[in-house]
């Protein structure tokens, strides 16, 4: 077994404001003879059309994919206004990428075809045996498309036992448009599906720091298509929620949403339904699917930093020191940390665990669209042991 060169997977970021400078900066840091594919996350501050042209120019024919963010995680930790990227060495990673252009029409047949073609591409690259042990799928979805659940459920049926994870693109809380990048352009109402096959050991994870409280709220009026809850317990949703958290409706903001999440319980686990905003009619918009009649449990937060450190340490215990940990970190987690004033500690932890990634409008894990989690994959330095 050959020693793995340091270039097998490398990360870089640029905080240059100018799109061409940023793209060149990245290309210069990432380029090497065996660079096979680049994955990036960028601030919505960039002029996306210019950035797309600059990236195509800087990287040429090299496959490039990515999405916009609600904040980046770079080698400095929590960052913003930057573009951060991971470069995969084609000798150790086979990365196949497909764009889903219309999320609302994504059928099971489409999912099957997409999965088959990605599997074929990975097999052709023959980097490692293409099976569920050596392969994972990364999804990057338009975070405002309200189609995540159906697309993910469909894709997951086709993927079978292959683990999938990912994040929904963000736009720095502007809530006006989120984009995924493929083939020289940014697309909305679209998704990127990447199949990554590698002999290097990796572990996919998803965790949160939320604990259930006792209060329950029943959604009594909702617009499932738009993820809007008009009423909780037959009261205007914002009023009911404001009373629950003890804050006037006018003062409901992202930090409150982050600190006092609502979650649905399915079997024995709780899945956060994160609130996106309060609408003028006192309804609440969510980042993920809601439905009339679901029971929302009020949650309180545990120690976000301890949970982060503990979970990533446990993974590195099993995997050895992570080479790169790709993190899809819910934007509300970052809101909470910023409100707590612990950004520096959080950044130190993220650096220690070699995390790069972005703040999302929702995370994806094995076909589930979830909120207020840290979901990702840690890539180790060792070749996967034969089991």
């Amino acid at each position: 077994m050959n020693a793995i060169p340091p270039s097998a997977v490398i990360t870089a970021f640029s905080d240059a404001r100018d799109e061409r400078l940023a793209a060149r900066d990245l290309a210069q840091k990432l380029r090497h003879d065996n660079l096979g594919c680049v994955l990036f996350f960028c601030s919505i501050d960039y002029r996306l059309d210019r950035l797309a042209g600059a990236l195509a120019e800087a990287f040429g024919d090299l496959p490039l994919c990515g999405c916009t963010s609600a904040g980046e995680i770079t080698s400095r930790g929590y960052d913003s206004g930057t573009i951060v990227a991971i470069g995969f060495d084609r000798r150790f990673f086979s990365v196949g990428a497909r764009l889903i252009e219309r999320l609302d029409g994504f059928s099971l047949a489409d999912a099957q075809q997409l999965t088959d073609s990605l599997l074929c591409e990975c097999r052709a690259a023959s980097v490692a045996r293409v099976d569920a042990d050596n392969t994972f799928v990364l999804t990057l979805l338009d975070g405002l498309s309200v189609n995540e659940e159906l697309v993910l459920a469909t894709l997951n049926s086709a993927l079978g036992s292959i683990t999938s994870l990912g994040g929904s693109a963000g736009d720095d809380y502007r809530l006006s448009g989120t984009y995924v990048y493929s083939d020289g352009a940014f697309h909305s109402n679209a998704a990127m599906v990447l199949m990554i096959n590698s002999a290097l050991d990796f572990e996919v994870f998803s965790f949160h720091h939320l604990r259930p409280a006792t209060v329950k709220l029943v959604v009594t009026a909702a617009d499932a298509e738009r993820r809007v809850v008009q009423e909780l317990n037959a009261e205007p949703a914002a009023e009911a929620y404001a009373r629950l958290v003890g804050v006037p409706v006018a003062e409901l903001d992202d930090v409150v949403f982050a600190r006092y999440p609502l979650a649905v319980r399915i079997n024995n686990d709780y899945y956060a339904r994160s609130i996106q905003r309060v609408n003028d009619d006192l309804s609440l918009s969510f980042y993920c699917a809601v439905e009339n009649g679901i029971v929302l449990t009020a949650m309180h937060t545990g120690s976000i930093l301890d949970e982060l450190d503990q979970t990533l340490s446990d993974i590195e215990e099993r995997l050895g020191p992570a080479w790169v940990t790709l993190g899809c970190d819910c934007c509300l987690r970052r809101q909470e940390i910023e409100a707590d004033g612990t950004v520096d500690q959080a950044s130190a932890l993220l650096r220690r665990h070699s995390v790069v990634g972005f703040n999302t409008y929702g995370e994806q894990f094995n076909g589930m669209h979830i909120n207020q989690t840290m979901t990702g994959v840690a890539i180790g330095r060792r070749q996967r042991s034969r089991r």
Partner: protein
Amino acid sequence: MAEDNAADGDSASPWDLHEARLMAENARLRRICDALIERVEESNMAPTAPYAAFQHSVVLAEQVRERTQALREANQQLLDEIEERRRVESRLREATEKAERANISKTKFVAAVSHDLMQPLNAARLFTSALQDQPDHNTQFMLSHIDTALLDLESLITTLADASKLDAGVVSAEPGVFPLRRLLDVLAEEYRQMAAAKGLRLRYVPSSAVVRSDPQLLSRVMRNLLSNAVRYTDRGSILLGCRRRGERVEVVVADTGIGIGDDQIGDIFQEFKRGARAVKYHERGLGLGLSIVEKISRILDHPLTVRSRENRGSRFALQLPLARLSAAEARAMEPAADAGRTLAGRRVWVVDNDRAICSGMRTLLEQWGCRVAAAESVQALAEHLDPRRDPADVLLMDYHLDPGGDNGMTVADALNRDRRRAGAEALPVIMLTADRGPYLKQRCARDGHTLIYKPVKPMKLKLALQHTLTRAPSTTGPATK
């Protein structure tokens, strides 16, 4: 509604207010109830709506997680079991190897001891045989007892040696084609006398069948069966017979003896296992006889069957494949006209490194009128005569000479080479050995030497001498190569 109540003002009693509040609360609860009912009903439908899709995914993921966990546990358990089995197996293998090593060393020990015991026994028998030929009636009685004791001892040692060789797996069949009569006639005659001594009748039904078998091994099986039949029968008769069965012939030894109980018939082929009553009949037996029979019949690939009823008798049957003699083989079977040839005056040289054997052999050969020169080596022989030039009729050569030195074959060859060089005639050689292996047998056959196995039976030696001298009738004839 509250506003309506307020507008009504004075007309509203506290009771009315309370009722209005309750109705509002009731309406709210009804809506919650409706929402829950809708949800419950929705949840039973196919997951086409976004939230239902999410819920479906969660349940699926959880099932996958649980199954993966169950599989992992089952897998781990299997791995543990495999590991445990591997450990047990390796311990068993170690124990087996140990037992095998112990068994091999035991077998080797027994073989070595049998061989060493055979040497002095051989000498003793030669002496008693010589003494018996003397017409001294005073010693005859005691001699016959000594001879019987020695015979028993010899048979025990032979049995032990056979068993150990069979255990060591060094015995293999060398099948040849021969008429069954050639072997059975001799045995029938021999055991007829033994049976008669006990007052038993031995009925022999000869057969013209030609079989494929190893005559030596077959003879050992038949001897064991016949000895047992005579030993364990007090009254009645013993049958030695043959019966053709298709492509096979069945050789049967049946008796009217003590028989074997149903409860013991399964054990009789095991080593050192003897029937309770058999022990009474034959105190000196080892219980190896039938185990040897069974092992040899397996080596020969002759199926062995036994039927027995207690107090009625036993019937052992061995199945041999039929064969056909080639013309050359048939000719070789012609009996040699050796009988009655006198050994008187023949010059016999004996070389054996065991002084007692030399001495016993001299006594025996001189009984037969031979002129004997015996020595422990050719060099020692040269002290009395000139081995290269002096005439002689036959050389009796022990194969196993001093360890580290040349064997009898090499020594005999060298002697004959020297003789030819000196212009004297090469001597016919009778090789004496306890080595029953195929190699020596083939060498002797190739070089024209006669092979006699130890312990030497005087009659056999006499026959061999007569046979050899027939082939080389004169000490003064032309030298042969």
